[in-house]
């Protein structure tokens, strides 16, 4: 995956470049809005990471310009402004996801990987399959090894989101935002409890676990070890 990072703070940019390269991605850096816009126009990248406050041309204008020119590359907006309104503005400008500084690198990585995946045009999938776990999105039925698993509506949506991003790390915040549509910090380990309940239903009585905890990052559902 090739990532363009438009970030004016050199140290942050270097840190992101180094970390993303270590995670196996190619990285291009742009130090200001105009340079970033020029590089983003080529549509050579899988994901753009754009800081909101940039010299010369601010981040939201870069996104708006790119979108108006038909560049559909997914964008993760980075911002020190964490208000609900700021998030809405960022998404309205054409950003696909919004991450507030300071953030954990694992969070950023999980999000751009989810973004890049989302960009691949997937035909409307009616079934998610991970190993012998099957989620039917039409009948809302979940089976494992042919055995029906009864889930609460919220558990179903949790599993659906995890399976949609199968093989990829999903952070607690991503779950909070996508499954519950909550944008605050619940402080307690609420997500962990929900996930462990789900796990007890889909993994407990089976030999091979599918729902894995990724330490320091979040969760991942996949067939096989993390």
């Amino acid at each position, binding site marked *: 995956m090739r990532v363009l990072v438009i970030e004016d703070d050199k140290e942050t940019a270097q840190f992101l470049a180094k970390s993303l390269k270590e995670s196996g991605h190619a990285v291009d850096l742009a130090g200001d809005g105009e340079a970033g816009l020029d590089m983003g126009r080529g549509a050579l990248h899988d994901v753009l990471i754009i800081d909101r406050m940039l010299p010369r041309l601010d981040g939201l204008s870069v996104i708006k310009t790119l979108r108006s020119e038909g560049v559909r590359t997914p964008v993760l907006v980075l911002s020190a402004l964490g208000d*609900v309104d700021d998030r809405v503005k960022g998404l309205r400008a054409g950003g696909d996801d919004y991450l507030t500084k300071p953030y954990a690198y694992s969070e950023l990585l999980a999000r751009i990987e989810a973004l890049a995946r989302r960009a691949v045009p997937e035909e409307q999938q009616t079934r998610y399959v991970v190993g012998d776990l099957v989620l039917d999105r039409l009948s809302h039925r979940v089976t494992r090894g042919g055995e029906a698993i009864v889930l609460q509506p*919220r558990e179903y949506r949790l599993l659906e989101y995890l399976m949609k991003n199968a093989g990829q790390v999903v952070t607690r915040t991503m779950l909070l935002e996508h499954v519950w549509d909550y944008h*605050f910090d619940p*402080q*307690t380990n609420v997500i962990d409890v929900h996930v462990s309940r789900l796990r007890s239903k889909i993994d407990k009585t089976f030999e091979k676990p599918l729902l894995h905890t990724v330490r*320091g990052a979040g969760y991942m559902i996949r067939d096989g070890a993390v």
Partner: protein
Amino acid sequence: MTELPRRVSGLLASSAFRLAAISAAAFVLLASGLVAVVFWQANAVLTDQVVATLSAEADALRTEGRSGRAGLLDAVAARSRPEGPGLYVLVDSTGRKLAGNLSRVPPEVLSETTGGVFRYRPVTVNSSAPVPAERLAVAMQIVMPDGDRLVVGRDIEDQRRYADGVKRLVIAGFVALSLIGICVAAMISRLVLKRIEAINSAARQVMAGDFARRVPVDGSGDELDGLAVNLNAMLERIVELMAGMREVSDNIAHDLKTPLNRLRNRVEGALRHDDAVAHKEALERTIEEADELIRTFNALLLIARLEASTIEDSATDVDLGKLVAGVVEFYAPVAEEAGARLDFAPMSGAALLLRANGQLLQQAVANLVDNAIKYATIARPSAASSATTAASSGVIRVALAVEHGEALITVADRGPGIPAADRERALRRFVRLDASRTQPGTGLGLSLVAAVARLHGGRVVLSDTIGETEMPGLSVRLALPGTLLVRGAAASGGQPEATAVGTAALDASPTSDVRSADLIGVAGARGVGHNARA
């Protein structure tokens, strides 16, 4: 001497003076118009009267003259008293005077057929007396059939003098009136200016840094007094906000410096050893602490922003029932895990709508539930007790009700509670009761809830939860005004019938386990006054 022109120009520049002067001028103008009309009318009436008298007399004399010149001569001679108001002269066709007390026919009368105004010198009896002054008179002439002409007149000098006197009086009066008007205007403006100057000087002193300074209020209740009261209220609010800011910085200093220092110590301690495992562990703990710091910082920042914002920008129609149910569902597994139970009965057959910031309300309710779960399960000091109380101690009641147009969201636990003396403090901005951080979280939960309530023009009330448990428990009630009750919207999905809650909240069930007498820690009440919605 430069003082006077300066003061005069200052006076002229004052709007109070201009206003008073304009009204005085308008009054004088109006009065002079009125007097002029009255004067003119009176003059006309008097003139008419004189003319009528003259005509009557002329008619009478004409009748006398019909019988011949002799009768007319007698009549004229009889009427012509030397100093009387009646003036007569009879001349023949050649202009020779035959009788009368006028020396000649005034030329002004000759040209006029209806009569004219002229000046004359009265004929004096005593020839040694000084020549009398000219007097004003009106007269009309009658031409007799034999060619004689009779002039009948009236002396109007007295009337003229009287009219002149009145004119002088009126002019003097207007001059006096104008002067008094200017003086009054000046006085009014000085009076007003003095009070405005008092406000200005107070404002200057506040700007200079004396924030305790207030605008003097004289209690008269007039506009300037109202202005002073409002200015003082504004200053009060500013001082309050500044105190809040100071409190914020103090609290930020405390809440952030302490963990920062801890963090620093850990890194320093780890550096002293050459152990890779210890380094890794220290780094991991450092990240955890940094995350904790970020959380605290975010909470502080959010509270500060809420204090300084209004709800209008971010308000949407929020279904409170759905919101509370969502949060309860979200926290239910955590509560269970902690040995507690969330007890929430949704309102049936009606939806509660409120113009609010949904995400902030979610967060506020989540904070309350989160807190309740943390404290509901704290072991009581006298641990061993009957099984029933042990079972009920973990129940957390979450209730949604409407009362007088206010949505009441109550979260009641059976934990150790907050002593009455501490309740108000618990709701103050940026205050952490649990400074020692024995529980996870920022400890700013209640402050944030109070800030969200203030933002919505509502309030937070803390009280004991009444129950049979030995611990008082804490009941937090979040009251949000301006709620709309929509009947049947949730149940039938049909045409919702919207009614104002205050009049139609029949199925509003007041939460029974909160003693109203116990509502001690009332916070956010002043927020109502400052909120545009209130």
